[in-house]
């Protein structure tokens, strides 16, 4: 890898030489992509400086979805925080619920029942399938294949129906709460899940034919948006983006939480780290998650699903600090929780996987890309603005 910046510090590749662009020379044009633009993920803005049709410089603007969650949580009791944590990230709220519950349980030393762990893992895997399926649809849509977007959204709806049966709501489930899960699985849930998984696998066959064997897609995504292996540590790349670039990080394997040490799976690593390779890896992740869901449903023991908590209105958590992490669909998501022994959390910091992907890494990757590919590159990083600004 050659550093554009000219200095050879591997930890600090090229920020220093943000290209000196003379806007007065009429050679460059500054255009804004977003926030009102169909080609950005969520509500964020890209300030692109282009020369002809190639991007020379890019600045990412976030903050359009800032609600101040970390501040709001500081003035709510622990149980009052629970309904708002899932709102932090729209595509995958369950990971936020789980991490908040796990952080509180760890600080307070609560052991949850065995069956609750399995149900939590089941919910997280279903949420991963839903999030990645929607991501794959968005990826195809960004390159003009709207049909796959339609298929993926429809199949995600089947998963949302499962969630609705489980928790009563399609998007924000509020199902995983400190001390276990809200209630047991509904009767016949396993059979319904199996039927949905078959549909998802069928969808992946179709996606293979229409997306991955498509000559246009291969031509456009080949070599687009490569993440170099050397960038993983300096930029803090996690999740599927890192696993494509030769990393082997997977929280499920490295720091087994819930029941992942009892499930049989391998970390999937990709050989190509361009947009095509990342989409391919996500397809494999979906299939692996389907397999994990089947394993979980097969091995799930019987028993209670909730442990008794102290009175939630007077639940005091001993003072201390902790960090818990989980592998979300896009990478490692973590919660840092500091408690001062009172009924209110002192500080909760949400570390979403998009934080460095969308800000530091994207500004670096996008230089030299043509305007038409910006949307595709952006969706291939699977950024989610609400967890950047919270």
């Amino acid at each position: 890898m050659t550093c554009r910046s000219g200095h050879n510090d591997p930890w600090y590749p090229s920020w220093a030489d943000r290209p000196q662009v003379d806007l007065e020379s009429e050679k460059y044009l500054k255009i804004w992509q977003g926030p009102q633009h169909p080609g950005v993920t969520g509500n964020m803005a890209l300030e692109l400086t282009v020369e002809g049709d190639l991007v020379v410089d890019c600045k990412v603007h976030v903050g359009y979805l800032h609600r101040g969650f970390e501040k709001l949580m500081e003035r709510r009791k622990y149980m009052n925080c629970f309904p708002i944590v899932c709102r932090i990230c729209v595509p995958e709220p369950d990971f936020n619920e789980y991490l908040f519950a796990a952080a509180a349980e760890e600080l307070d030393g609560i052991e949850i029942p065995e069956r609750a762990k399995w149900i939590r893992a089941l919910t997280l895997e279903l949420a991963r399938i839903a999030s990645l399926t929607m991501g794959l649809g968005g990826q195809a849509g960004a390159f003009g294949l709207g049909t796959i977007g339609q298929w993926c959204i429809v199949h995600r709806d089947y998963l949302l129906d499962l969630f609705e049966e489980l928790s009563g709501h399609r998007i924000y489930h509020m199902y995983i709460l400190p001390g276990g899960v809200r209630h047991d699985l509904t009767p016949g849930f396993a059979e319904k899940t199996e039927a949905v998984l078959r549909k998802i696998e069928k969808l992946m066959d179709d996606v293979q034919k229409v997306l991955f064997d498509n000559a246009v897609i291969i031509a456009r995504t080949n070599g687009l948006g490569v993440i170099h292996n050397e960038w993983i540590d300096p930029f803090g790349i996690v999740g599927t983006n890192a696993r494509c670039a030769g990393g082997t990080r997977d929280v499920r394997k490295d720091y087994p939480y819930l029941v992942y040490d009892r499930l049989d799976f391998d970390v999937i690593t990709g050989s190509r780290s361009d947009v095509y390779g990342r989409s391919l890896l996500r397809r494999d992740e979906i299939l692996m998650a389907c397999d994990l869901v089947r394993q979980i449903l097969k091995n799930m023991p019987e028993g209670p699903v909730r442990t008794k908590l102290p009175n939630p209105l007077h639940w005091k958590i001993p003072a201390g600090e902790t960090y818990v992490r989980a592998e979300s669909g896009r990478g490692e998501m973590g919660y840092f929780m500091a408690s001062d022994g009172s009924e209110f959390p002192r500080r909760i910091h949400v570390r979403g996987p998009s934080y460095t992907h969308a800000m530091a890494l994207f500004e670096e990757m996008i230089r030299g890309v043509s305007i038409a590919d910006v949307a595709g590159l952006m969706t291939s990083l699977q950024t989610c603005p609400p967890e950047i600004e919270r």
Partner: protein
Amino acid sequence: MDDRKMKHRSPVPEEELLSPDAFLAPEERGLFCQDRPEPVEPSKVKIIRDFCNWAQANSVFILAFGTGCGAIEMRPLFTARYDISRYGMFPRPTPRMSGLFIIGGYASVKTMKRIVRSYEQMQNPKFVMGLGSCTVNGGMYWDSYNTVKRLDHYIPVDAYVAGCMPRPESLIAGFNRIKELIKAGKAEGANEYAKNFEWYKRNQRRIIKDWNMPEYNW
């Protein structure tokens, strides 16, 4: 509109509110349209008025601007399962093509500025639908320092859909409500905005401190 509450809180003198010189650099003044919108009176002839309302109600195009998390329930609407095209609705990429602005949930101050800009770029007839409880009274974020609590203080809202977040079925119910209003000639949000332009502008300027729009160099 009850303006009594607002007056004593105005941070800037009222006569300066609409003058561009107060907040724009001289070279930027030409970049902004300074004309205030004018109310469009419906036709006096009943049959023409009814025809216009009928036509407007059956081609409501949605502006594809996901301003909040409610936007994630918009995508299932366009798929075969809910199929919003049955109602003559379809997402449009630019404000100039669209007639219905769906505020998808909480509007932070930074987004509010873009919402105002997009709304003013839309052509008449235009309608606004507030989606989610957070547009009604703040919802979950009632004590947040960065989200707008009452959307109808800043842009006129024709219909609200409550819920956090509303299901696609309730969205369809909201669309039907909007269509009924249009057919009855009661969805007069744009005229309301034009008539009470100063009031809306004053409210907007009160929360949007950094009023300068992004720098363009065309």
